[in-house]
C-alpha cells in the first residue's frame, strides 16, 4: 500500500501499478491489506453494488440521450467510472458530507438523489441540482478543484466539534494540477482535518492525457504532503469500497486526511460538447472496454454461482424505471417566471438589486394587456 513512484509510461502499464481485489476477468485476487476491509461483503451486498452500477450506467445513458434530444444543455458522462463512484460512495455514513465535481452522478445517486436532481442543473433550471442538506452533498462544482478546499474547511468544522463525521471530496486527474487542490492538501495536513480526497484518475482532462498532469502516479504526491494514500484499480468496485473504508476509518479515528487515487477510465467524452475521437485512439478505448467494471463484477458473481437471472432482470427493470422517472422529471420541469432571475442573490435586502428588479418588473408590466 505504499505509494508508487514509478513514472507513468503509458496508460495500460499504469493500471497494473494499482491495488485490486477483482482482476479484470473477474478472478478474486487475495490482497493482504484490502481484504480485511471487505471481509463482511457477501453475495447479497455484491449484487447490491452491481445493481447500483447498472442503474448508474442507465442514468448516465439517459443523460446523454436527453442532451442529444435537446432537453439538456450539457451532460458530463461517467460511463466507465461506475465502480469508483459506487464503491467509494457506498462506504460513506449518512452524516458524512461530500464535495463533488460535476461528474459525480454516481455519488449523488448513492446519496439518494431524486430523478430530477440529475438533470436540473444541466437543463439550466437552477444553479444547483438538489438540496445540499438533504443529500449532504455540496452543489456540483464546475470550477476545477475548488471544492477540495471547501471539504477541508468543512472538515475543520467537524474537528472543532469533535464530531464523528468525515468530509469527502471528489476530483479528477486534471484537477491535481490546480493550485486549490494542492492548497487543500496542505491545509488538510496542517490541521489534521478529517477529510478524504478521492481522485478519479480517468486518464483524460478533456483532451489532455494524465501524463500532462503528472509524471508520477498521482497517489504518490499525497505522502509528500504528509497524507497517506492508496492507489486502487478504479474499475474494481470491491477495491474502491475497501480503500474508501480504510480512508474513512483513518479520518474518523482522528488521524487526519487520507487520499485515494482510483485509476479508471472515462469511456465517453468529457462532456457532450466534446469529441474524443480527435485525441484518443480506438485501441485504447477497446483495452479499457475489456476492464469494464460491471462486466468484471458479473464475471465474478457468475463464476461464484451468485448471479441469478432474476437479479439481472430485476436490475434491468429497476434501471429502466429510474431512467423513465428521470426523463419524466426532466420533461416536466417548469421554468420559473422572469423575475426569479433576481431571487436568492443575497440573503438580505440589497437596494441596488431591488432597484433593478423593480425596473425590470415595470418593464415587463408594460407589456400586460398587449394582444
Amino acid at each position, binding site marked *: 500500500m505504499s505509494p508508487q513512484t514509478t513514472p507513468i509510461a503509458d496508460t495500460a502499464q499504469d493500471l497494473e501499478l494499482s491495488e485490486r481485489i477483482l482482476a479484470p476477468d473477474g478472478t478474486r485476487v487475495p490482497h493482504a491489506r484490502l481484504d480485511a476491509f471487505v471481509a463482511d461483503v457477501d453475495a447479497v451486498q455484491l449484487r447490491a453494488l452491481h445493481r447500483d452500477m447498472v442503474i448508474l450506467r442507465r442514468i448516465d445513458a439517459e443523460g446523454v440521450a436527453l442532451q442529444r434530444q435537446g432537453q439538456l444543455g450539457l451532460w458530463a458522462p461517467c460511463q466507465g467510472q461506475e465502480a469508483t463512484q459506487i464503491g467509494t460512495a457506498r462506504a460513506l455514513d449518512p452524516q458524512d458530507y461530500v464535495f463533488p465535481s460535476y461528474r459525480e452522478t454516481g455519488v449523488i445517486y448513492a446519496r439518494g438523489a431524486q430523478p430530477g436532481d440529475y438533470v436540473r442543473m444541466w437543463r439550466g433550471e437552477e*444553479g444547483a441540482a438538489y438540496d445540499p442538506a438533504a443529500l449532504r452533498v455540496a452543489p456540483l462544482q464546475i470550477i476545477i478543484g475548488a471544492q477540495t478546499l471547501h471539504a477541508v*474547511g468543512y472538515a475543520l468544522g467537524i474537528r472543532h466539534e469533535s464530531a464523528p463525521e468525515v468530509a469527502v471530496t471528489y476530483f479528477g486527474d486534471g484537477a491535481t494540477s490546480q493550485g*486549490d487542490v494542492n492548497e487543500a492538501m496542505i491545509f488538510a495536513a496542517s490541521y489534521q482535518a478529517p477529510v478524504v480526497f478521492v481522485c478519479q484518475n480517468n486518464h483524460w482532462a478533456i483532451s489532455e492525457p494524465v501524463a500532462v498532469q503528472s509524471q508520477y502516479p498521482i497517489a504518490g504526491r499525497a505522502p509528500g504532503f504528509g497524507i497517506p494514500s492508496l492507489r486502487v484499480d478504479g474499475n474494481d468496485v470491491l477495491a474502491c469500497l475497501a480503500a474508501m473504508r480504510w480512508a474513512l476509518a483513518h479520518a474518523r479515528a482522528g488521524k487526519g486526511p487520507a487520499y485515494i487515487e482510483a485509476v479508471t477510465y472515462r469511456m465517453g467524452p468529457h462532456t457532450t460538447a466534446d469529441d474524443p475521437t480527435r485525441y484518443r485512439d480506438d485501441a485504447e478505448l477497446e483495452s479499457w472496454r475489456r476492464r469494464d467494471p460491471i462486466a468484471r463484477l458479473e464475471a465474478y458473481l457468475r463464476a461464484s454461482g451468485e448471479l441469478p437471472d432474476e437479479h439481472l432482470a430485476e436490475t434491468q427493470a429497476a434501471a429502466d424505471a429510474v431512467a423513465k422517472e428521470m426523463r419524466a422529471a426532466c420533461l416536466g420541469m417548469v421554468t420559473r417566471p422572469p423575475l426569479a432571475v433576481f431571487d436568492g442573490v443575497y440573503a438580505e435586502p440589497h437596494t*441596488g438589486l431591488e432597484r433593478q428588479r423593480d425596473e425590470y418588473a415595470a418593464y415587463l408590466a408594460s407589456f400586460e394587456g398587449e394582444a
Partner: protein
Amino acid sequence: MTELTLGKALGAGLRQAMRDDEKVVLLGEDIGKLGGVFRITDGLLDEFGAARVIDTPLAESGIVGTAVGLAFRGYRPVVEIQFDGFVYPAFDQIVSQVAKLHYRTQGRVKMPITIRIPWAGGIGAAEHHSESPEAYFAHTAGLRVIAVSNPEDAYRSLRQAIASDDPVVFFEPKRLYHHKGEVDLEASLADAPPMGLARVVRQGTDVTVLTYGAMVSTALQAAEAAEDEGIALEVVDLRSLSPVDYDSVAASVRKTGRVVVVHEASREAGLAPEVIASVTERCFEYLESAPVRVTGHDVPYPPAKLEKYHLPDLDRILDAVDRVLDRPHSLTGADA
C-alpha cells in the same frame, strides 16, 4: 465613548463579534501570536484559542476556500487578507464561490463570510501593498462591499458585516489604522444605522463630494480649504460600495447640483464612473454641470516615491471643484 485608533476599533469589533457568537472564527496569515501584521487581531488568540483564531498556511485561495467549507458547516468565518494586492490569488474563490453559492442554491447555502482587506496606499509600501481592488468586488453580484473611514464606523460596520448572512468584502484603509476617534463600545447593533447607508460627513450647499475610505479625510481637508474661498463643499462618505446608498447621494446632489467623485483607485470602469452614471440617471435635471472624477491614474500602483503624484490630494479635488463650479482651473489655465 472611548477614544480608539481605527485599528484598535477593528480589534474591538472582532472581539465583540466573537463573544456574541461562538460560530465566528478568524482565519488568516500571522493573525495568531503576532496579532496580524497590523496587530488588528492582537490578543484574540489568548482569549478565544487556536480553534477560533486560526493561523493559516500562506495560501490566499486556501484561506478563502477553507472559509467556504466552514460556512457550509454553519460557521461565520472572518478572513484576513494580509494586504490588498494579495487578494488576487483568492479572487476565484471569492467571485466564483463565495459570491455565488447562495444564488446557485436558491438560498439553501449561506455564505456569511467577512473578508477583511487592509487596503490602499499612502504609506510608502512595497509593490503589491497599496492596491485598490474595490471595483472588482463591487462589480460582482452576491458580494457586499464596505469601505470604512473612521474608528466608529469600523467598529460598528465590522460587527454588522460579520452578523450579515451575506458575504462582505471589508476594506480597511491602512493609512488610517492609527487615526483616532470616539467609539461607542456599548452601543447596540440593533440601534445602529445599517452598514449600507452613506453619511454626510460635512454639510455644504455648493458641491457634493462623493468619496470613501482614506479619501474622506482628504476631501474634508479640501472642504476646509474651499471654505476659505467661500465655497461650501458637502462631503459624503459612501461607506458602502455595494450597494451604494443612492437615496442619500441623490438627496445631496439635488441640494448642491454639482458633483465631484473622489477615489484613489484608478479611473477606467471604476467606482467613480459608475457612481456618476447612476447619479446622472437619477438627478439629471438637478445637475448644474457635468460631474467630475478625481481618481488615481490608470497605471499600476506606482513606486512609493511617486505615489503622491498618483493619489488624489486636496489640490486636485479643489481643481475639480473649480471645474464643476465653472471657475478658472488648472486644466484649461483660464476661464472655463
